[in-house]
């Protein structure tokens, strides 16, 4: 039993072969893509493996502490930032193989021409609670 994060990137992931930006798809293709995502999440709810799914707006700022009594400093957004996260899905699965299988399935969402987009997803294990028995 382990939780994994499947991370989608706006930017920063390797570009899959034959990549077509979403704004070049037909509206029906976009609807089919969105439907696939919903169905995928619904399926995971049924299998008891779904934890969370969220999308992130592309615009954000950088914030940091600037000393006692001063407002936090903000900066950005930086157009050159390499990595831009688009959203995530968190799953709770029995093993790594299952996590891989699901990530592969999510990456097969349909795009232009109804063909799988082969999007690269980043799969990251959660840090767990320490096991009770260690020695």
């Amino acid at each position, binding site marked *: 039993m382990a939780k994994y994060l499947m991370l989608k990137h706006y930017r920063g992931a390797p570009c899959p072969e034959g990549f077509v930006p979403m704004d070049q798809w037909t509206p029906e293709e976009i609807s089919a893509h969105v439907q696939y995502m919903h169905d995928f999440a619904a399926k995971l709810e049924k299998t008891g493996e779904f934890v969370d799914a969220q999308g992130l707006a592309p615009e954000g700022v950088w914030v940091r502490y600037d000393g006692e009594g001063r407002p936090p400093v903000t900066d950005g957004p930086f157009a050159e930032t390499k990595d831009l996260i688009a959203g995530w899905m968190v799953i709770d699965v029995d093993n790594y193989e299952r996590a891989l299988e699901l990530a592969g399935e999510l990456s097969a969402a349909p795009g232009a021409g109804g063909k799988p987009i082969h999007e690269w997803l980043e799969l990251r294990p959660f840090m767990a609670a320490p*096991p009770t028995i260690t020695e």
Partner: protein
Amino acid sequence: MDEALLRSLTPSVLTVLVRRGADFAAAEDAVQDALVEAVRVWPDDPPRDAKGWLVTVAWRKFLDATRADTARRRREDLVEEEPAPGPAPSVDDTLQLYFLCAHPSLTPSSAVALTLRAVGGLTTRQIAQAYLVPEATMAQRISRAKRTVSGTRLDRPGDVATVLRVLYLVFNEGYSGDLDLAAEAIRLTRQLAAVSDHPEVAGLLALMLLHHARRAARIAPDGGLVPLAEQDRGRWDTGAIAEGVRILQAALARDRLGEFQAQAAIAALHADAPTAAETDWVQIVEWYDELARLTDSPVVRLNRAVAVGEADGPRAGLAALAELDGTLPRYAAVSAYLHERAGDLRTAARLYTEAAGKATDLLERDHLTRQAARLNTRLHAGLDA
């Protein structure tokens, strides 16, 4: 109201319903409903016969649910028919329930969830909170698990080993969330030990008690992990240790050694040492040899290398480690520890940093980072002097 008593009655009430002809999935739902009702009603109106009360209410819930069902025909049969007293459910029924909930057709996470609900009497919400998943997800996991085992009859003996693996998983999940899964695992294993005389059941119960006994000393006030050697042994629960040792000795006397008894023996040797320095590492190495014969697990051999390092010196430990696969989890951490003991602080610091990067839980990562920082501070101070 005694919630522990309430929950301990869960398996026997459930088996009564199944004996009367209710299918497992529906019976399990009905028992949950009865438990909820008990929590509501008992504080003001405690029953004289707790189990009888639960059976009556659960049976009525089951009939209500069946009535709402489309299976009209079956319902009528059941309502017409005064529940046959049948053979009184015996301790074997509880055992069968453990087997069913740990059935090999279930994935580990489903078996854990089903065991906690059907045998442990926990609610779906409690289980979901303990495992940090949404309640809806846990509800689906449990109902799928019930469907998976729905064709399985309660009358065939299963394999105790599968049940023990499930209980071990529950125990090892740790202490996250409000629900104390470790204590719950001990309760369920104790209950299993009452209906099964398999020495490995006793071995697992002893193992759990011996580890649980050290719980208070295991976490520092700042939340960090305290390694065994640095724990305040005065904070160990001597009652739990004594019970664990007693159970283990009785199990070992039956001469049917298994991996849980061997693990418990190692835990008992640690528990038995008044100070870390007085630990009987030679005997611990022997038990690791025994354990390696029983399980052939690389993790066991890794732990054995630590024990060899204590029994025969860090050089011997490093030699034992050199025979193992360097990609094993915690290999770098063990190597770091042995290098420090051997006086090679620079290598140890580097390995602690490497181990922290590979840690799979936060407390361990922080602990290893602190070890690296401790050595680096010493090394820098040495250079400046």
